[in-house]
């Protein structure tokens, strides 16, 4: 009986909550398909969108795909079945969206893409894209590092999850960025799978297999850089001095590390897309036309500015 109660209580309580928010008859229903919760960056993005929805009195249907495109497609289908007013989608990859977006389009539901684009034959299938440019981020990191190294040095790279879009683009952008500098070489490149633990493990191996040769670390996200910092300290070296470290995202932990002098630079990739996303939703629902691309401006932070910015970091 306990079990039964628990199953049936669930839909029951949903009714209550939806009738709570449903007291305002004009409350929008918006579906948000998120990739997962693999990093603090991602969590910050989710939080930004959920907070913004709450602020605006929007009835949000949140779905966490646990890193699987299949689940995202499931989510969009169930949003369509629920006849939501708009869909926000953070696509895990670029391809494979055409069929499901067509369904949404046919149902007259506007789709706002966040963090990265999709490849579709007809870009009227989505309303607008609000995103950073991963390739540009990689390039910015490369430029900062090339400058700091003075044009020569050995770099080790900690890649993101193999096959994931940011990993591919940030690698590509970085390689473009260092290409003009003959003296700079990437001597090791392995995946740290975007996690702190893996970042540390890979860095430990790099330090052992190329002792004394590493001048700088480029990590595809801050979490891996923070792991690498620990590995460098364990090896008796000074991160940020003996070995320069640059990474991407700009989470709070990275700023703390910069203030402590252990991280040299982080390229911001702003996850606080909630306000912009719901502005776009509001406009789309109101029938206004929107720019196809809303590019989020990313900035480079280094130790010189870290201390003043840190208190304003929300994530």
């Amino acid at each position: 009986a306990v079990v039964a109660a628990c199953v049936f209580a669930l839909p029951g309580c949903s009714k209550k909550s939806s009738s709570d928010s449903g007291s305002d008859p004009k409350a929008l229903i918006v579906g948000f398909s998120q990739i997962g919760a693999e990093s603090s960056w991602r969590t910050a993005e989710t939080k930004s969108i959920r907070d913004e929805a709450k602020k605006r009195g929007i009835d949000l249907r949140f779905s966490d795909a646990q890193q699987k495109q299949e689940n995202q497609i499931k989510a969009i289908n169930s949003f369509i079945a629920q006849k939501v007013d708009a869909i926000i989608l953070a696509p895990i990859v670029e391809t494979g969206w055409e069929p499901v977006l067509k369904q949404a389009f046919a149902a007259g539901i506007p789709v706002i893409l966040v963090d990265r684009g999709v490849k579709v034959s007809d870009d009227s299938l989505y309303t607008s894209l609000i995103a950073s440019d991963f390739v540009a981020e990689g390039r910015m990191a490369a430029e900062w590092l090339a400058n700091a190294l003075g044009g020569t040095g050995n770099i080790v790279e900690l890649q993101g999850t193999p096959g994931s879009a940011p990993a591919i683009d940030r690698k590509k952008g970085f390689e473009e960025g260092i290409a003009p500098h003959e003296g700079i070489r990437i001597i090791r490149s392995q995946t740290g799978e975007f996690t702190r633990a893996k970042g540390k493990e890979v860095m430990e191996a790099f330090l052992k297999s190329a002792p004394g040769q590493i001048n700088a670390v480029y990590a595809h996200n801050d979490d891996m850089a923070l792991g690498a910092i620990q590995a460098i300290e364990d090896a008796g070296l000074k991160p940020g001095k003996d070995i320069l470290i640059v990474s991407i995202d700009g989470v709070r932990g990275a700023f703390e590390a910069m203030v402590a002098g252990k991280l040299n630079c982080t390229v911001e990739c702003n996850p606080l897309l909630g306000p912009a996303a719901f502005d776009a939703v509001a406009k789309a629902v109101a029938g206004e036309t929107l720019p196809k691309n809303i590019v989020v401006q990313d900035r480079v932070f280094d130790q010189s500015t870290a201390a003043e910015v840190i208190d304003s970091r929300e994530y």
Partner: protein
Amino acid sequence: MARFTRHWPLLATAVVLIALYATAAIAYPGFGSWFQFTRFFSDNATLGLAAIGMTFVILSGGIDLSVGAVIALSSMVLAVLMSRLDLSMWSAAPMVLVLGAAFGAFMGGIIQVFRLPPFLVTLAGMFLARGAALLLSDAKRIDMKDIESVRSLSERHIAGFSLAAMVLVAAVVIAAAVLRFTRFGRTVYAIGSDESAARLMGLPVARARVGAYSISGLCAAAGGVVHLIGMQAGDASAAFLLELDAIAAVVIGGTLLAGGRGSVIGTLLGVLILGLITTIPNYQGDLNTWWIKIVIGLLLLAFVLLQRAAQRWTEC
């Protein structure tokens, strides 16, 4: 008499599934819609196909951890064949199916000949297939949306059911028939129930085992083809760890992990149950990531406990 009571557990599972579905359909607007109903089949077609193949392997007393990776590999191979070598869907897809079956047969052969644990061999197969899929393309994904045959197939629907859903249903029917009405099918049950007895009874143990694995490979390859058509892209990271869901679906559907007892119909129920359970949070509103996981866990728990209770109740 015995013939009917044997199906009680399956009926109990079906009843609990329908009850869950009805409850959700009443509680959430849109959940009971025809659109969502058809999506349960198409969204879970790849999983379903893999689970059907997995049913054969588990019935035979084995396990196949490679199915997710084989799905990814076959979608990549199909994409390469069609986009790079310009083969048509009709010539490329059969090649991929044969490849999948051969891959399964290869693993089954190693398990049979060297008497190695299926877990190890198919795990190696998983690494191999996933690695090969990743190596096949630098971009890890090949966009296929501009290829006409893929496009038209992916947009073909009958009464809202996509091609994938129809393939799934057809596969269930065929697999059920093979298991029930062919000597091969019965031998699969026999070796899962008691392999040494099956050998002493003079049954073709080796052939049945290799056959079970090659069917699993074939089903996974079909899953890859369906996946490619559904997504209009070949994808090396598709179906990551799908094998766990497939195994869970098979077991929830009443097939014993130790082998010898179970059915594909049960597996289909298991797949739909997993699909249902993971869809409910999408309707639940603003649950955050962790609550979604906890709710999925609780729903699964509630389901299996209800299923157990229903089965006990029908037993006496």
